């Protein structure tokens, strides 16, 4: 697959997911719609910024290949997983003690959790990229 076709395909997927997210908000599935929209926007913004940075470096005649990228991605994924485990554990612990009965749509809830995890991952990625 050529680069241009790959780019078009990925932007197509982003648009479809975004449209799905907006549709879900419109029909009343606020949690799922918000989660999906936020996740797609976060991921595509990160991808766009990265692309622009690479173009800028290439225009300056500099090499954009950052060998640390996979290392940083691994560290961020591990930190995100740890954070998710701690947050989930606290949520379950506090919920078990206080014991409020919540009626939530499972898919909405999962959508919000997914969006939160994506934002945590992006945050860790930028943090590690800055401090390393």
């Amino acid at each position: 697959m050529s680069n241009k076709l790959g780019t078009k395909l990925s932007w197509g997927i982003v648009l479809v997911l975004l449209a799905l997210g907006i549709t879900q908000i419109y029909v009343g599935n606020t949690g799922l719609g918000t989660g999906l929209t936020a996740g797609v926007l976060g991921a595509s913004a990160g991808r766009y910024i990265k692309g622009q940075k690479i173009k800028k470096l290439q225009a300056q005649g500099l090499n954009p290949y950052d060998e640390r990228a996979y290392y940083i991605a691994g560290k961020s994924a591990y930190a995100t997983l740890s954070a998710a485990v701690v947050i989930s554990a606290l949520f379950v612990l506090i919920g078990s003690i206080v014991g409020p009965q919540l009626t939530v749509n499972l898919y909405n809830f999962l959508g919000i959790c997914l969006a939160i995890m994506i934002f945590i991952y992006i945050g860790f990625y930028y943090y590690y990229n800055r401090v390393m």
Partner: protein
Amino acid sequence: MENHLRELRENRGITQEDLAARVGVSRQTIISLEKGKYNPSIFLAFKLAREFGLPIEEVFIYCEEEK
């Protein structure tokens, strides 16, 4: 792992940009290596050592206790 990258580079009057371009990585990678915050892949370590015309163990120093 510690390294002598900065002093070797400065002794030869090479900028971080130049060194990065010569070994095919970003300047950010060289900065992290010089700060000792990132351990390079074996390929990059060999490329850097070759660039300075030195054996790898004279550029990178193995430490028993990892930070």
